[in-house]
């Protein structure tokens, strides 16, 4: 009989927490966290426009991360915390940037900003693995079809129109209810 020592991380990450949800987006200031991937800014700005025109949000402001594979740096997190009411991050279309975009959402939820992170469908597993690292494997994020880098202006608009209602729903719904609704 021999005894082996476990080589893996045993302590779970900190339990992610969520910001309380507003009743509606009317009059709210929206922070958009662009991960700098090609066309991400185009999609986020269009989503911001729709949230203003159709959901009555007051404004949107785009923040550009230093590079895609890191979480938004402290200055961005602080600025959003002080000057925005809700946040949309995206669009994660690669390994390190999809998980990085999910992390932006986790970090801003912990700072009391309702958040919606968007990744492309081929990176669902990566995004879930990142959520698990933070002790919340069911962390809700939004999924868009892959790829996005080669889309035309018209296609970008369609993508934005398709995802905007889901963004609004996630920003307004208690994430725990979202989790229950997911398989």
């Amino acid at each position, binding site marked *: 009989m*021999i005894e*082996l*020592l*476990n080589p893996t*991380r045993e302590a779970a990450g900190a339990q992610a927490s969520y910001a309380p949800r507003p009743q509606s987006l009317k009059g709210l200031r929206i922070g958009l966290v662009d991960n700098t991937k090609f066309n991400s800014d185009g999609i986020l700005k269009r989503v911001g426009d729709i949230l203003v025109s159709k959901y009555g949000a007051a404004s949107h402001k785009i923040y550009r991360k230093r590079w895609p*594979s890191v979480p938004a740096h402290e200055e961005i997190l602080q600025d959003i915390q002080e000057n925005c009411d809700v946040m949309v991050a995206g669009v994660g279309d690669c390994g*390190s940037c999809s*998980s*990085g975009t999910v992390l932006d959402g986790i970090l801003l939820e912990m700072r009391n900003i309702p958040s919606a992170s968007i990744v492309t469908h081929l*990176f669902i597993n990566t995004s879930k693995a990142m959520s698990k690292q933070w002790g919340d494997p069911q962390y809700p994020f939004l999924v868009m079809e892959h790829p996005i880098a080669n889309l035309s202006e018209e296609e970008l608009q369609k993508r934005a129109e398709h995802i905007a209602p889901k963004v609004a729903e996630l920003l307004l719904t208690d994430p725990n209810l979202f989790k229950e609704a997911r398989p």
Partner: protein
Amino acid sequence: MTELTALRHRIESEADAIDFCFDQGWTDGLPVIPPTEGRVRAMLEAVKLKPDHQIGFIPERRISITAEKVAINAVLAGCKPEYMPVVVAAVEAICEPEWAFHGPSTTTSGPAILLIVNGPVARKLNINSKESLFGPGWRANLTIGRALRMVMRNVCGTLPGTLDMSTLGNPGKLSYVIAENEEESAWAPFHVDRGFKAEQSAVTVMAADGPCQIFNQLSDTPEQLLLTMADNMRISGGVVGQTYYVVVLPGEHHKVVTDAGWSKRDVQKFLFEHTYNNYAHLRRTGRFPMPIKPGDEYRMRPLVTSPEMIFVLAAGGKVGAFSAFIPGWAKAGWSRPVTKEIKQ
């Protein structure tokens, strides 16, 4: 004696234990050495670290990497206890904010971690710097890098398909460790370029593609020889990321260059000056968006932003008209090479 806190698993026999490790998903696909308490304690003893000592912290995942977990993974990888100081220094290095763990470990572009070992420790541990530089045959080269990957896999969750989304993978992800051939080099060792003393030992970690070999048996001047190198380097790696490069000059090519009195600085400068691309070509080949603009045929972009970003090493076999270059990962600012002292 300080208690080891890792969860324990009781297994019937050593042979069953190896299969058990496979079944738990603890291995890279090769068999491992079962991590028993005695073996783990020998690892910790070699670095005189307490089990709960934090070697590194990865903020993007809130992971604290303890000496105990590093020791367990070094056992799995097949390290000798005397390799532990190198493994510990390498883990410290990948936890530095400059190296920025999450990007190079998770990216689709799949870099491995090149470890360059310098100083007396390389000779002491018999880390290969000569024939078959990147090939198998040396326990230290194969198990030190493997231990680092085991830590990433088991402690940091760097698993293929989830937090390692590498499209093609990289054979260097099993282990990618070299030493510099300091004793036969005409130049100061690489770690001295990085700010250490020659008598210190150090390891440099760099997120990198695989080695790309060049062939030139005809040239007897540095200029002509390095033109071959520059020609192969010009379109390599991410091309437009202006990231770091390693250039490895083995015996024959090292001799051509140093017999002519060239310093490392001369090599760096020459390669820097001869690896520009024009913007028209970069657009035509999909590295930058089309269309080609007026003047693009003559507007030039350097492969790296300064000559010092090309690290020049003396290593590899004595015989053969071959050298190699290694492109770093993505863009320079996304992950920078980090050098750490190996404390013994």
